[in-house]
């Protein structure tokens, strides 16, 4: 949970390695670098709220990606019925998903906080299934996409062209990460949340309202991931199962960075995003890109269990 010390320890070495790799990539395959960074920031921004819930509320939310899927559909229907631009729809989505977060915490999550981890996993798994199947029932599994002209804008440097709209992901990742860090470090509510994450009983003893903190953090995270769904749907087609892989990729990033290490998530998502785009750039092997996160997660688990045994 010690954010600052972890930041100092690990990011120094990782920065050097990633800079070297980035330079090699920039010369060899510039596409992979640009698109990989864009993809990485999308992963990071989705994983951050999940890390927040896991670090402070202590629940692994297997329905995380499905909240994002709901956010995407929310923006789609807002556009269809009111003509609102998806980038404007971020703000109503934040509000709507904050309320959804409050409702799901009050109605469901609250009751398994003290339950065994097994029950929590099963509960959020059931929740994910309900959301996916409800979306499937209401909107069918047909992929949909809004025809937005500005998302396919591109820029050209020398001989190579890349999409510029995707820089929105980088912006979102920077805003969300720095916003969360400021909130956790500089505000008393954020400090209280960190304290609750470290030791709920201790936090209660010094007069922090633990339940209210859980409610706030959970709803805030759901609001964020809902809003990210809105950004996501501008560029990608959406369907009921669109969020499920992101749940697993987010967990992969959290496991790599270590629970509670928010900045580490950004670095780890860079590794995942660049590696995926690297594989995608080889014709004939592109299908294997979806398997990378699994290889990474198994590797991380093996390294971590080895470290634990050595200790």
């Amino acid at each position, binding site marked *: 949970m010690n954010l600052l010390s972890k930041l100092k320890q690990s990011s120094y070495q990782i920065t050097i390695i990633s800079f070297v790799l980035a330079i090699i990539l920039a010369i060899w395959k510039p596409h992979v670098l640009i698109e990989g960074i864009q993809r990485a920031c999308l992963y990071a921004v989705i994983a951050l709220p999940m890390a927040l819930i896991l670090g402070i509320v202590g629940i*692994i939310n*297997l329905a995380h990606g499905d909240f994002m899927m709901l956010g995407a559909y929310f923006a789609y229907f807002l556009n269809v019925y009111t003509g609102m631009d998806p980038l404007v729809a971020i703000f109503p989505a934040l509000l709507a998903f904050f309320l959804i977060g409050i409702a799901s915490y009050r109605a*469901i999550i609250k*009751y*398994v906080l003290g*339950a065994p*981890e*097994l*029950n929590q*996993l*099963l*509960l959020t*798994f*059931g*929740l*994910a*299934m*309900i959301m996916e*199947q*409800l979306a*499937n*029932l209401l909107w*069918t*599994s047909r992929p949909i996409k809004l025809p937005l002209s500005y998302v396919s804008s591109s820029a050209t440097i020398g001989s190579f062209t890349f999409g510029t709209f995707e820089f929105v992901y980088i912006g979102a990742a920077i805003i969300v990460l720095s916003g969360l860090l400021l909130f956790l470090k500089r505000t008393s509510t954020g400090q209280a949340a960190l304290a609750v994450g470290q030791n709920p009983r201790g936090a209660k003893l010094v007069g922090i309202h633990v339940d209210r903190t859980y409610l706030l953090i959970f709803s805030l995270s759901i609001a964020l991931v809902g809003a990210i769904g809105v950004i996501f749907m501008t560029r990608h087609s959406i369907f009921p199962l669109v969020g*499920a*892989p992101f749940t*697993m990729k987010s*967990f*992969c990033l959290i*496991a790599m960075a270590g629970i509670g290490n928010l900045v580490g998530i950004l670095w780890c998502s860079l590794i995942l995003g660049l590696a995926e785009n690297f594989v995608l750039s080889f014709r004939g092997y592109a*299908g*294997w890109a*979806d*398997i990378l*996160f*699994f290889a990474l*997660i*198994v590797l991380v*688990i*093996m390294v*971590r*269990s*080895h470290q*634990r*045994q050595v200790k």
Partner: protein
Amino acid sequence: MRNLRYLLYIAILIILLTLPLYTGVYLLNVMDIILIYIALALSWDMLLRSGQISFGIAGLFGVGGYGAVLLHLNLGISPLFSILMGGVAAGALAWLVGMAVLQLRGMYFAIVTLALAEIFRVIIRNFPDLTGGPEGTVLPSAIFAGNSTKTYWLVLAVAVVSVMASEIFRRTRIHFALTSIRNDEIVARSSGIDVFKYLVFIFVITSAIQGMTGGAYAHIYGFVSPEGSFSVDFTLLPIAMALLGGMHSTWGPVVGGILLGVVSEFLKLQIPYGHLLVYGLIIVITILFFPQGILGTLGQKLKKTGNG
């Protein structure tokens, strides 16, 4: 009392064995599905008794199915033996995965298994020459040439194997080892239980049962495909059945399987594109209101009235 119980088991078994004599083909098909889900639900629950949760039922089920079908087609192994080999394939895979990730348990294991179905789907799509790619592979003919009585006996055998495995695990020292690992790993470790070894062992056994069930399913329906064989149905339904019936027991998943198996036949007709929604709801409601399941809750009620 004990003899009476065994007599009851034998009577039930005889009724089940002779069922094809007095029922039609449709009911036998429904029974096939119910028995397959019971085998899956039981094997899932057997792993749950060690405190580990697997969301990879569909993955191992599909691997068993593909293993059985491909071995039968390419090596000419007889269908029945290839079903067994499908179980061996799933067990071997589970051994690999278990050796790698069971050192870190709980949510790490759960998420890795959650990804299994998706990963296998990707792998199978990427070997189109061997597996038929996204379209899948069709067998020249279903097992026993589609004879519904013989297929029913096959599925019954699979279900009986899993019931017996579950009962053996409940009555031997494995049961105490797994229960103590679930309750407190440190205590289990300090009383000399090799936690890692037991967890890998039970994961391999339950996965082999799931693979075998998948092999039987693939041979009965005569085809495998990435979407069909790794369908989320095979993860979601068994979990809902085991939870509803009552976890950590043999008869809980069986009762849940019979109940939901019958219900699912109606649901499929009523809401063809959203019937899985109901199982999600069942999981959430069971966890929130009666985590012991139907049998567990009834048992507690009976005990209370018995004492009062």
